[in-house]
């Protein structure tokens, strides 16, 4: 059906003063023959909005192009229903606020953006949401410890049918076996009774369906339709759930590896959990006890990370000793006491009770007549210090996430095709450890991909509970080392994410960061060559494969980043409102001045998540940069298809710049791998460019975070200066 297009140009915020609005209208009315083109002094005001609504009602307008402010503002004002296409042409943040007013080049920029917007809407269709069949709103929590119980309780209290799977015969996990617990409420100074019995009762009362002594044999499907096979002694059960919280916790670090601290050598050198067991049985009378922190943690030989909970757990256990015998001498040997947040009060409480904290590294533990002696490199005194007559030495032996316990998944067997592909640079793939937790039936492997130290990857900067598997949310110490208070918060947070996931999946919308997006990739399977690039590169494992290598998409797992679209060499993947031809046509819509006009053109592909906001911020701060640039926002640099660069260079652009997010271990890419993949793809064409006699420096990739907005003008001007040195693109002549 033919679209009914209307263009509205806002002249407010100084746009009308800085630009020739008549000339701009002519682009729409003349070049593009748009039937309706109106201007308004304040389009976002009630009268402006009413004007648009009137045209929609009276003239059947279904495609609205608004030339004014950035799409990042007033999106709630310019909302005309999901059956209308709304396209925004950013004349404010990216034109008049950062370029000279009343200037020929600024005017050309604005007109190009108008052309790009009009071409874009031409190539767009209204997305139709994907609906899961036999959709389930149930939420499954895997792991019945503190975090899992909290998640299950929160989910059930919010009105969602909840299933809890615990591998042991009793609920409670590590915390459940404690004598007492660290304070969880103000004033954060007193030992508290173990909360697990009450929590278990609350979970039972809330109607959570509980499977004990149960493990997950496999998890198939996608958000809204996970089919989980639960194995118990007497067989298996299948449950369909909408989203999953992974709260399988951690295990204490193997104390057998701590022989240097006397474990295994002296019976009274014990671990925190052993001391906890003793306390449950009745704290032993002891007149002198030492706790050794970082026994394994923050040690390159053992666990390089801080286990986060041991400091306050040791402080708690020190207070057990004092509770029993306040004359007892209790020592804590530490590197740094990391009693985060309110637990500083707990630390101080222990000090006031007379627990002595010694800053130093333990160098040797010896035993004589059953009493232990500790020798330490005492940091405060700058010398060796001794303390003897200890009844017990307790090692704070840290924690290892259950996700890290298992064999590393091996690379798939090399086929001829894969061997050929090996020569090509490839994005690093995150390790998958076969930890026997979820047993996913996914092409990319059975568990969540790990980032560092075997902890499942989470985008800790922006979305801490997210994993690389949509609809599965990791919480508690399986995700990161943390104390009990944080674990409770994590459990609640992950339950909330799971709820959010089933709610948006039911509507056919994406979970964030593209929340609300109803488009999803469609595959023109006639032309698929089974190259597997899409199935391999999807950062979320959304695409399975049949035996022949054909992609089997799972739209509800999809985050709509478009990485598959960028990966596909055959360009058979597209979204209703985002496609290779759409961006390609936008590139082609930009007017290319003749070489002798001395007006270079620079194309910028900027990531929607950080680079576009940063560019807008530069505008908001009225920072000026050259007006040769033409910016095209991409969902993620991962969706960059190389054909666009070919198009651009062929069109005579003097340079192309990719602006994406930081990658690496502490990546900021909202889709994990997008900017890294784009750079890798880029490296593949530099050779081609050189062969064509085009300097490969003309095409560059850079990373920006939103905080870098003030560096953007210099970045763009520098690139322009470099290009000037290279001279104009010789392809201009062939236009």
């Amino acid at each position, binding site marked *: 059906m033919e679209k009914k297009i209307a263009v509205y140009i806002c002249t407010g915020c100084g746009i009308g003063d800085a630009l020739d609005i008549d000339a701009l209208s002519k682009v729409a009315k003349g070049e593009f023959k748009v039937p309706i083109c109106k201007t308004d002094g304040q389009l976002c005001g009630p009268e402006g909005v009413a004007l648009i609504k009137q045209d929609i009602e009276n003239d059947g307008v279904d495609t609205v192009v608004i030339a004014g402010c950035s799409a990042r503002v007033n999106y709630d004002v310019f909302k005309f229903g999901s059956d209308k296409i709304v396209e925004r042409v950013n004349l404010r943040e990216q034109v008049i606020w950062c370029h000279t007013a009343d200037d020929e080049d600024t005017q050309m920029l604005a007109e190009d953006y108008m052309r790009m917007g009009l071409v874009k809407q031409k190539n767009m269709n209204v997305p139709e949401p994907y609906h899961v069949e036999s959709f389930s709103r149930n939420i499954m929590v895997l792991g019945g410890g503190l975090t899992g119980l909290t998640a299950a309780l929160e989910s059930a209290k919010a009105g969602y049918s909840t299933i809890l799977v615990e591998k042991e015969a009793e609920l409670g996990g590590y915390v459940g076996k404690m004598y007492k617990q660290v304070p969880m409420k103000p004033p954060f100074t007193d030992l508290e009774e173990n909360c697990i019995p009450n929590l278990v009762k609350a979970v039972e009362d809330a109607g959570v369906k509980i499977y004990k002594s149960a493990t997950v044999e496999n998890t198939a499907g996608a958000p809204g339709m996970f089919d989980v096979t639960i194995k118990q002694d007497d067989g298996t059960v299948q449950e369909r759930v909408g989203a999953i919280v992974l709260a399988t916790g951690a295990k204490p670090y193997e104390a057998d590896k701590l022989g240097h601290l006397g474990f295994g050598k002296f019976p009274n050198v014990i671990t925190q959990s052993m001391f906890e067991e003793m306390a449950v049985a009745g704290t032993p009378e002891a007149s002198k006890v030492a706790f050794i922190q970082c026994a394994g943690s923050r040690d390159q030989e053992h666990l390089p990370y801080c286990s986060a909970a041991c400091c306050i757990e040791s402080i708690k256990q020190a207070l057990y000793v004092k509770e029993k015998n306040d004359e007892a*001498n209790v*020592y804590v040997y530490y590197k740094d*006491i990391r009693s985060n947040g309110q637990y500083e009060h707990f*630390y*101080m409480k222990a*000090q*006031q009770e*007379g627990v*002595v*904290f*010694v*800053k130093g590294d333990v160098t040797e533990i010896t035993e004589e007549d059953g009493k232990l002696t500790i*020798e330490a490199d*005492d*940091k*405060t*005194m*700058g*010398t*060796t*210090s*001794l*303390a*003897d007559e200890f009844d017990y030495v307790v090692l704070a032996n840290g924690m290892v996430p259950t996700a890290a316990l298992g064999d590393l998944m091996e690379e798939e067997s090399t086929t001829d095709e894969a061997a050929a592909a090996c020569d090509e640079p490839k994005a690093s793939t995150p390790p998958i450890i076969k930890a026997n937790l979820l047993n996913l039936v996914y092409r990319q492997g059975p568990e969540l991909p790990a980032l560092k130290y075997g902890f499942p990857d989470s985008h800790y900067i922006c979305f801490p509970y997210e994993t690389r598997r949509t609809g599965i949310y990791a919480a508690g110490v399986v995700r990161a080392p943390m104390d009990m208070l944080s674990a409770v918060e994590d459990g609640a947070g992950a339950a909330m994410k799971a709820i959010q996931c089933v709610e948006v999946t039911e509507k056919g919308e994406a979970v964030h960061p593209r929340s609300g997006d109803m488009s999803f990739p469609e595959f023109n399977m006639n032309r698929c060559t089974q190259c597997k690039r899409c199935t391999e590169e999807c950062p979320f494992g959304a695409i399975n494969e049949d035996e022949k290598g054909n992609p089997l998409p799972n739209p509800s797992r999809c985050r709509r980043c478009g990485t598959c679209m960028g990966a596909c060499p055959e360009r058979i993947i597209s979204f209703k409102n985002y496609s290779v031809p759409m961006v390609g046509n936008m590139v082609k819509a930009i007017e290319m001045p003749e070489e002798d006009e001395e007006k270079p053109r620079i194309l910028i592909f900027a990531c929607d998540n950080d680079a576009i906001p940063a560019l807008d911020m530069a505008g908001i701060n009225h920072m000026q940069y050259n007006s040769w640039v033409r910016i095209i926002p991409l969902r993620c640099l991962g969706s960059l298809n190389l054909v666009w660069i070919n198009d651009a260079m062929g069109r005579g652009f003097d340079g192309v710049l990719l602006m994406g997010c930081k990658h690496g271990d502490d990546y900021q890419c909202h889709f994990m791998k997008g900017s890294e993949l784009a750079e890798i793809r880029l490296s593949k064409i530099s050779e081609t460019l050189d062969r064509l006699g085009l300097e490969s420096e003309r095409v560059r990739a850079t990373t920006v975070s939103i905080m870098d907005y003030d560096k953007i003008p210099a970045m763009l001007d520098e690139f322009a200066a470099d290009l000037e040195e290279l001279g104009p693109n010789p392809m201009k002549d062939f236009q």
Partner: protein
Amino acid sequence: MVTPDKERAAEQAVPHSFKKKRGDNYFMEQKKIFSEPVKYDLTFAREIYRLENGSYIKQCMNCGLCTVSCATRDVMEYPPRQLFNLIKLGKKEEVLTSNTFWSCTSCCTCKARCPRGIPIIDVMHDLKKYAIEYGYTDYPQAAFYKAFWTEMSSRGKMFEGGMTARYFLTRGLDEIVKAMDMKDVGISMLKHGRMPLLPPKKIKGLGGLKKIISKAQELDRKEAAR
């Protein structure tokens, strides 16, 4: 605008002669101060914890803010946090013979900055008192403190002339010789009418004051005995 950086730079502005001296002491915390291993023994610490402000020592978390804040850090044998640790180690002799608390000028910088709220200057007062009680009075400051108190409690007011005389009487001839190069100061003070030769009148309520003092000390003793 005074920035912390500027302040630090100003504090560290020292003439050449002073720098050398500073170098000797500045890294004392890194220096090994004991050749033999030290051994933790809490007996002495428990005694110190019982002093008026003694139990605050337990709260020290070894951050070192007191050390960098101290006006007299260059001359202190042990910075405050190290002194506190010596107490926990039971190093009674080292603690009581150190110049740390005697060097304290009560400038309150450490007290105002201590993230653990330890009133460090008050702890130093306790240690001074404790040292005097146990006869550790070799430092000139001990004599000065005693002279001050005797003068004050016998008159109700301070008479600097009297205090100075008492101080030198205790410290002996050597100190007077050393003080001779200060005679210029004394003379100019006299000349500018700032050093009365006669003491101020005793306060009328001196008897009452003395009663207050002895009652206060009695109450202190009672509480300590408990």
